Structure formats: C-alpha cells, structure tokens
C-alpha cells in the first residue's frame, strides 16, 4: 500500500511539474490510470470509498472481490460508463495520462475512444460481423472501403477469430457462438485502436473452452494494450494478471503484484477471500 501511495504522490508532483524534463515523461508513461481519493455514490449508497490505485501501462490488472464490492463500478468509472446510471456522484480524481477524466472538460467521447470496453455479456450489434467491426471506425469518420476492409481483417486477426469467420463476414453476428461473439466484441473494441481495454467479467457467460481462448487472447493483447479486468474467478486472476486489486465493500483492501497477493497476502481479509472462506 505504501508503495502505491508513494507512486501516487510522485505522480502528483510529476503532474505539477509536467513536461519539465524528458526524465519525468518516461516515468509518467508507466502509469496509465492514477486514482486518487475516489468516492462514488449511487444516490444515497456509498459504492466506492476513498479508492487509491495506480494502474500501469501494458500490464494486466485484475480486480477481484465478492459481488457488490464495487469492482464493476470502479472499472465503469474509468471510462465514465457509470454516468449512464442516474443519480451518480463522484469526488476525487482519476488521471489518465496526466489528465483528470472526472473533470467536466474531459469529453467522454475522447475518453471512450482511448479506453475501450468489453462487457460481461457478449453484446454484438444485430448486424453482420463486418458491420460490427467497422462500427467504431465509421463513427470516427473513416469511410474508405479499403481502409475499413483492412481494419476488419486486422482486428479479427488480433482477436484470433479471423480464421473462424473470414468466409462469413457478411452474415449476422448473432449466428456465432457465445465465445465467438465475445471475441468479436473484443475485435470490435480493437478496431478503434484504444490504449486501454476494460473488461468487465468477460468470461462469466462463457464455457471453459471459450474462457481459455479469451485468456490466451488477453496474454497476447497485453503486449500492445493496458488491460484492466474484473473477474469473479480467482484462478483466472492468478493465471492472467500482473497486478491484482482486492475490493471489499467499496474499498481497496489490498493491491499489489498478483504473485504476492495470492501467495503472501498482507491483509487477513484478502487471505480469507482467496482461500474461499467467503464471497
């Protein structure tokens, strides 16, 4: 925890002395999201309490915790999707590459272009596979057919689903299996070329085989993207993540290297949870 605090403080200073030297720029690049004293209320319910987290670039950060602990709320705050719920209030700040995304002047459209999201339930549009992928590029104004074709191929290859769908790009995405639909949704997310991919329990609706495929995919994606994944499945967190944050009742109980959290947790509640005593 203290390491995180130090990092937080460092980033604050770095932000204040922004662009003063090349050295600070390199250090700053390591952190993609820095959350400081974040509180969130759904009307009267205090859902997130004083969250401090610093999430690194090009790593997989897993967020674990029992149902209702605020883990989904937290990642939905990172792309401000949480604002779709009426009556949400936040205090504190989340800096994305040095800028506070909770600030009114930070446009959600900009944020969500850079921070993509994959949802719990596969949610392709009721359109063809091709149209699903080009949706993002099209809303950002890309109309050239050749470029769109290229994006479709690259994105589907990036999500390791190209070989399965290349002969039926113009068929309805609803004809795919659940696991394929979820990989299509990941490909759709890649088509916008975000920096960060948020994943909200992406495998909870999938069978073990599809889950394995998604996990392998996450390992590949980590080379180019920062990934933050909420998961109910502790083995999954242990298998795929570099850092793990344990949430309980809206608070971060423990955050650190996945290895440390799972082998030598410093808080007894973390230990209880990962050893299956509750949750």
């Amino acid at each position, binding site marked *: 925890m203290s390491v995180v605090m130090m990092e937080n403080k460092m980033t604050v200073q770095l932000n204040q002395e922004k662009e003063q030297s090349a050295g600070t720029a390199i250090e700053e690049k390591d952190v993609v999201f820095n959350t400081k004293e974040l509180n969130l209320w759904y009307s009267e319910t205090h859902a997130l309490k004083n969250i401090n987290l610093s999430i690194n670039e090009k790593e997989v950060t897993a967020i674990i915790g029992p149902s209702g602990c605020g883990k989904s709320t937290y990642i939905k705050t990172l*792309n401000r*999707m949480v604002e*779709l719920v*009426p009556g949400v209030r936040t205090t504190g700040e989340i800096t994305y590459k040095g800028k506070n995304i909770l600030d009114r002047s930070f446009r*959600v*459209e*900009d*944020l*969500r*272009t*850079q921070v*993509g*999201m994959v*949802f719990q*339930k596969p*949610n*392709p*549009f*009721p*359109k*063809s596979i091709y149209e699903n992928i080009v*949706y*993002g590029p099209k*809303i*950002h104004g890309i109309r050239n057919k050749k470029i769109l074709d290229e994006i479709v191929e690259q994105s589907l290859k990036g999500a390791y689903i190209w070989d399965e769908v290349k002969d039926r790009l113009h068929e*309805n995405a*609803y004809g795919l299996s659940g696991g394929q639909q979820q990989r299509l*949704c990941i490909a*759709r*997310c890649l088509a*916008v070329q975000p920096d960060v991919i948020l994943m909200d329990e992406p495998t909870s609706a999938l069978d073990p085989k599809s889950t394995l495929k998604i996990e392998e995919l996450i390992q590949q994606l980590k080379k180019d993207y920062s990934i933050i994944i909420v998961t109910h499945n502790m083995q999954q967190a242990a298998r795929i993540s570099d850092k793990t944050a344990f949430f309980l009742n809206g608070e971060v109980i423990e955050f650190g290297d996945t290895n440390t959290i799972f082998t030598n947790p410093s808080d007894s509640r973390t230990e209880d949870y990962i050893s299956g005593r509750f949750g």
Partner: protein
Amino acid sequence: MLSKLDQQQYTKRMNNRIRKNSVLQSVFFLSALFGLFVLAILIIRVVTQGFGWIDMDFLTGRLSTDPERAGIMGAILGTLWVMIVVIPVTMIVGVGTAIYLELYAKKGKFQASIQTNISNLAGVPSIVYGLLGLTVFVRLMDLGNVVLAGGLTLSLLVLPILIVAAQEAIRAVPSHLAEASYGMGATKWQTIQRVILPAALPSILTGSILSLSRAIGETAPLTVLGIPALLIPFPNGFFDTFTALPMQIYYWTLDSSLVAEYANLAAATIIVLLVLLFVLNSVAIFIRNKFQHRY
C-alpha cells in the same frame, strides 16, 4: 401423489380443475368471436349497401346533390392532403419528443410533468382538440378551415399516442447495445441514429399505423373546425379549403332521411375509407418488415 389427499378427493379436484379450464377457454373464445362477429356484420352491411355504388364516376367525380352524379374525389384528395401534413408532423414531433424524454431528458420534475401531461392528453376527447384547432389554427393564426389547419389539429390529436408508442419502442431496445456504442466513443446522437432508432423502428411504425388510422377516421374535430361536406372544388394545396372522407360519410348519413340514396353513398364512402386505410397500413407494414429482416 400428494400425501394429504386420498384418491377420491384427488380425482374430484382434478376433474373440477380441468372443467374450470375448459369453461374459461370457451369464455375467452367467445370473447374473441364477439369482435369478429361485429366486424363481419359491419362489413356485410356496408358492402351490401354501398358496393354497387362504387364505380369510376363515383371515385373520380365531383360532389353533387344528385345521388346518381355524386363523386368523392374531393374528399379523397382532402384526406390525402391532410395525411401529407399529419405524417411528417407526427413522425418528427412524436419521435423527437420520445427521443428527448427517453434519452436526453434528465429524470426529474420537468421530465415527469411532460410525461404526465402526454398521458393525460392521450385521454382528452377528440372534440376538445377540435376546439383547440379552431382557436389556435383557424382563428389565432388566421389560417381558416384549410388543409393545414385540419392536418395540424389531427396531428395534435394523435401525437400523444405516437409519443407513448415510440417511447415504449425506444425503452425496449436492449441497453447493452447502446452501451457497446457509447463504449467506442460514439456520441448520443450517433448511438440513437445507428443503434437505437434502427432497433426501435419496427415498433415505432406499428405505433404510427395506429395513430394514422385514428387520424384518418376522425370526424368530430373536423366538424368543430367548420370543415364543409358540400364542397365542389378540389383542394390543391395546404391553404385550400377541403373536405375529408369521414366528413362526407357524416353528412350523407345525416341527410339520408331526406334522400334515401345518401345512405348508399355513405356506405360506398366507408368502403373507400377502409380500403385507403388498408393501403396505408400495408405500406407501413411493408416498411416495417423490410427493416426487421435487414440482417
């Protein structure tokens, strides 16, 4: 077998339950038959009275007090002109209001008061809309009893129905589709245009069919506006005086005590009105199915 019941009790109760089920099934079937029965009588009556009177001269002729020479081209054109006003006005204002209320408006007192008012307006008798149209469009805006005044009045009348239908259509679009779009950096309008409206369109069109059918058949507000039934010239634009098919039916039915053949003319006009309704509905259903089977 349920342990608390002996065999005799069990059989008795089971028989009762099964009998109750078949009795109710018959009741529901008769209820459904009732509507069909009434409709059949109506159509048979209208067709036997009026079908013989429909010919080319009747459809394309001008109005006349002589039943043998009377035609309803003027009323057909009047109804079509009014629809040309009603369709775009209700679609734009109705769907626009529904989009605002469902997707843009913050849930609060203002939104709630608009919502309540719309629900109340849907229950206001049509003749009251006639008075509103008379005051605002005919007198205040000094349009007179022209196509535009009639069309706007009928638009107001059916707007609440369309708004409520469109709201329900929008609400029925799964939220995870909109979330997928927002998640890629789409604006609200892009999401509405590309995801929500295409998904809601079939239901919106169903609502618009219902409201248009209502507008075509309304008579009361038109009588209040002072729309004439005996009108010789054809309407040629938004600012022409007009008459409409239901008005024609109304006056011919009224005067059938004077000239018996007017009853036949009214019946013939009803057939034309029903066919017109049928055609308009078919077009809407065609558009709806086209969008539904797009993927």
